[in-house]
């Protein structure tokens, strides 16, 4: 009997999964079945549209199934399903409020699926979903839509940046923010922008512009979102980058596991994937680091922005913002002022009324004040503020913490604009260094050391210290005038010059020992030593870097110095002056020569070494360094309330902090085990196997019995064979032959 040909779907009743599978495998043959389902879909849609709000659960479910099926096979019949995406769009954008939650989710999911199958494009999808996201009242729906939109944007930008799409979406978001400034809808624009900024998908000025508009909105939530972005968005981005670069794959481990476990296609694929990933990571590493500007730097016209923020949200009395929001805005404004050196004069007088110890979160306000000061702020504007802080905070009657906070705040302000301080006030404040309280004492000392550097003339003679007194008498130390800028230089260049000098001297000395008459040594005139391989005349093959001939005035110091060495040091002072002049000349290094990469590397090394040396120095030095570090953290980082408050060391520690301190540097052990046991369990947890010896030791005694018995009964010939075999194996490297 001939087997009858079985028509499609004859056997299985109402099984969408198998139908979908078959259609996807062979769209042409199953066209009739598909058309029937398409008819069913149309009928269901009609039923649905008769009364979208009051549909029975059954018909919702069947409609749900139909949408699912057709979305999955839509790419097989593009002609027949031409209207499908538009239908879905219409359904979800008109009825999303009333739709059954599951059906709603399915429709959105199907649209995304169609996007993935490239039936519709990203712009169409996003312009459908975004209005729903903004207007929907269902929380779960919004969360899902947000996720889908984000994912789609990420996918669209995964291979290369999709500029047209980004521009469209950014325009939509911008319009959303600016269209109605008082509505909370703009929060979605902020969320989306922040997320994409964090993932470095959007890194240009346009998203910053969106956020800028958000900051100037009328809705408090929106304002806070925008301001928080500027204050924390970049840090978030850096953290994410650090996180993503952490995970590394150990290829050797994967390879090893393949040799042990059963070989399967799946494992092979996993290995290939791992190799791919490692390659990609390596490629990423070798790529030049993308230059990402922080949002604060990408702002267009920061002066205008800061002024608007200040006048709109802070200055007026009408605004109803909470104190927390105001503080955030204040932080942003002052950060902008400090970073871009803006001039907003009314800002400083605005501070006056908040500078009392009873003001809520005054430390944060003080930090903002200090952050908003830079060397181009007129000292007249700051003087009353400092006076007020001194009067309100720093007095014998006030609590020691308050006094410390006041002194710290004054120090921070003055470190940015030292001219704001008057002589009498400074001398008064410096007296507090004799205070009994450690916090106050340290704060006062900090102020003292600051003014020893920037304005020693204002201090009393006995407070100036050795360096400052000497500097004043030599005339090298002067207080800078208003608006005067420091001459720039390269940090650590003098170190490099000194090192080169030493290097040359050492070489000369060696040469002198070897052959005193050999003056024509090529290394004698250049300080590009061979160990750096660059720039010396003989290494002509490394032609990438041009070797610059050194001018004669740089060659001069060497003989001079030698002369000095050779002579008896009778005139110390003259010598010292000479040395200073020499150093000055050497710092010209940068202006007269081109630094090779090797030079730069050495410079880096020397810088690191000197910083280590500084850190290793005396206790006093260490303390100073720490303060310096506090002062000259990165310019982009703002000042926080913690910098103003007394250092953590002076506070009483909480219990958790104490425990954490005690635990620091100790291995974690949950239970009291021997070290070997801990090590062993660690090894096991890492999936490593035991050694051969260990296996032998663990083997069941009964299993070893037979071998032991037979060993005794072996004949001499057999023993010989075994021994020979053993020797041979050991020469070959074991049964498995090492290396083959």
């Amino acid at each position: 009997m001939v087997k009858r040909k079985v028509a499609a779907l004859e056997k299985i009743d109402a099984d969408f999964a198998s139908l979908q599978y078959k259609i996807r495998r062979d769209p042409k043959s199953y066209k009739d079945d598909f058309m029937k389902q398409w008819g069913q879909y149309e009928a269901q849609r009609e039923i649905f549209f008769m009364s979208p709000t009051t549909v029975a659960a059954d018909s919702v479910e069947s409609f749900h199934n139909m949408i699912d099926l057709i979305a999955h096979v839509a790419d097989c019949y593009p002609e027949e399903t031409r209207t499908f995406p538009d239908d879905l769009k219409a359904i979800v954008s008109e009825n999303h409020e009333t739709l059954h939650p599951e059906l709603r989710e399915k429709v959105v999911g199907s649209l995304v699926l169609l996007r993935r199958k490239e039936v519709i494009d990203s712009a169409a999808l996003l312009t459908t979903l975004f209005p729903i996201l903004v207007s929907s009242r269902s929380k779960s729906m919004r969360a899902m839509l947000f996720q889908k939109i984000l994912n789609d944007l990420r996918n669209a930008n995964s291979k290369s940046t999709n500029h047209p799409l980004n521009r469209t979406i950014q325009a939509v978001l911008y319009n959303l923010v600016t269209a109605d400034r008082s509505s909370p809808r703009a929060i979605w624009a902020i969320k989306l922008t922040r997320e994409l900024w964090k993932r470095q998908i959007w890194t240009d000025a346009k998203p910053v512009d969106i956020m800028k508009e958000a900051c100037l909105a009328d809705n408090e939530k929106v304002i806070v979102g925008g301001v928080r972005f500027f204050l924390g968005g970049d840090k978030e981005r850096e953290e994410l980058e650090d996180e993503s670069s952490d995970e590394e794959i150990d290829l050797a481990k994967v390879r090893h596991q393949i040799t042990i476990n059963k070989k399967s296609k799946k494992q092979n694929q996993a290995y290939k994937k791992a190799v791919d990933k490692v390659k990609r990571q390596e490629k990423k590493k070798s790529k030049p680091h993308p230059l990402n500007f922080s949002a604060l730097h990408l702002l267009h016209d920061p002066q205008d922005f800061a002024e608007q923020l200040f006048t709109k949200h802070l200055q007026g009395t009408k605004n109803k913002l909470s104190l927390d929001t105001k503080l955030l805005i204040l932080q942003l404004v002052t950060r902008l002022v400090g970073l871009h050196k803006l001039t907003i004069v009314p800002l400083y007088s605005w501070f006056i009324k908040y500078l009392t110890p009873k003001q809520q979160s005054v430390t944060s306000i003080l930090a903002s004040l200090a952050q908003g000061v830079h060397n181009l702020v007129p000292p007249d504007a700051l003087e009353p503020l400092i006076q007020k802080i001194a009067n309100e905070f720093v007095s014998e009657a006030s609590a020691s913490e308050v006094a410390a906070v006041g002194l710290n705040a004054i120090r921070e302000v003055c470190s940015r604009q030292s001219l704001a301080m008057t002589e009498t006030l400074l001398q008064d404040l410096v007296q507090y260094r004799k205070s009994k309280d450690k916090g106050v004492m340290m704060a006062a000392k900090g102020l003292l050391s600051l003014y020893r550097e920037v304005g020693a003339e204002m201090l009393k003679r006995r407070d100036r210290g050795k360096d400052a007194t000497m500097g004043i008498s030599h005339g090298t130390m002067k207080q800078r005038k208003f608006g005067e800028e420091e001459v720039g230089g390269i940090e650590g260049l003098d170190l490099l010059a000194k090192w080169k000098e030493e290097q040359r001297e050492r070489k000369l000395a060696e040469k002198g020992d070897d052959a005193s008459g050999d003056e024509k040594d090529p290394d004698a005139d250049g300080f590009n030593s061979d160990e750096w391989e660059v720039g010396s005349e003989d290494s002509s093959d490394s032609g990438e870097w041009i070797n610059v001939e050194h001018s004669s005035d740089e060659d001069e110091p060497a003989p001079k110095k030698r002369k000095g060495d050779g002579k008896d040091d009778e005139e110390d002072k003259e010598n010292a002056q000479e040395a200073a002049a020499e150093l000055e000349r050497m710092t010209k290094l940068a202006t007269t020569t081109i630094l090779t990469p090797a030079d730069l590397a050495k410079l880096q090394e020397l810088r690191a070494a000197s910083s280590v040396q500084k850190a290793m120095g005396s206790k006093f030095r260490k303390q100073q360094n720490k303060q310096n570090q506090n002062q000259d953290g990165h310019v982009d980082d703002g000042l926080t309330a913690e910098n103003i408050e007394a250092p953590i060391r002076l506070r009483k520690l909480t219990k958790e902090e104490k425990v954490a301190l005690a635990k620091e540097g100790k291995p974690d052990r949950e239970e009291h085990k021997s070290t070997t046991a801990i090590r062993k369990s660690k090894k096991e947890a890492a999936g490593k196997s035991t050694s051969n010896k260990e296996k032998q030791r663990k083997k069941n005694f009964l299993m070893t019995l037979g071998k032991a018995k037979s060993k005794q009964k072996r004949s001499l010939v057999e023993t010989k064979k075994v021994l020979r075999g053993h020797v041979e194996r050991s020469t070959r490297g074991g049964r498995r032959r090492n290396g083959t």
Partner: protein
Amino acid sequence: MGSSAKKKKEKKKDFQKPKYKVGKAAPKASNFTDTSFKSRAIVMNQQSLSTAAPDAVQQFKHNLSLASSSRNDKQRRDALAYLTSQLSSQPPVNPVGTNNILLKVLPLISDSSTPVRSQLLKLLRALPKDQAKHSVREAITFIRAGMTHLSADISSDSLGVMEWLLDVAEDELVAIPGGWFKTLKTFCIIMGWSLSSSAAGWTSAPGSGLRAKDAQVLARQISILTRFIRVGLKPPTPVPWSPQDYWDNLYRIPRDPHAFEYLNLYGERRDEESEMYASPESRQGVLARKFMEPITKGIDKAKKEGGAVGRAVAGLDQVLTDGMRDYNGSDSQLMTDQWLLDLW
């Protein structure tokens, strides 16, 4: 190694299957906990002790809601049976109105249980014909959904409902928006007469070598399609003139369902598919333009099958030739319709 053997036995015990014996209860598991309890009285916390039984109206409504929303298919069937008995009693009991009943029970066309569907058909037949015709639009939508259902049983059962609808309101059926075009399209789809002629040179596998059951279903489909087309193409019966007509037309509200449907005041814009084709001429035009080709192809194929299918198809062929005899391709009215549609 005695101890080892003993251990082995003990270990084996864990994996032994329990032995079942005929007529005896299954052995209890080792961790069985007896949860049965004895009690002298059962206390019901909430018990309604109303002397009055629910009245007939209440009961009818309750059964109607059961029929449409119960999860249990037996319950649904019983509820439908109750409704049928109420409707077919003399005089019929129907407190909610035919339209409301229809709205509730029509979704059951696609019900998964066969007894429910057959009971539904009985219920439909028990409904008064002149009132049922007001819900033609809803009915035909659900019937189309049923006909294209993935399950063959449901799709063949919905043919019965289609027959009922033809009995009840054949003239309305072909004239309502979408009633002609969409229904014809559905018929073509379920019989596998492909509308798009893109697959030139390809033969489709199903359709050849039908089973007896499939052939029966196909014959039934064809015969119902024949009836549908006959209704659609039959010339309108002239209404006998009466002197009252003139005044009625001026001053009385029309009595037929959806009297002003053709104005389409509230609905969305209609395309070719959901347009209403009120006159036999326009229906002829649609049939000739869109469906003639696949239907004639299908007829040719089915004629070769012979048997019941062949006989049914012969009827269809006859109806088509009769109906299309007076059709000439360039009907001016049709052309304007088409032209207007194209303008949109």
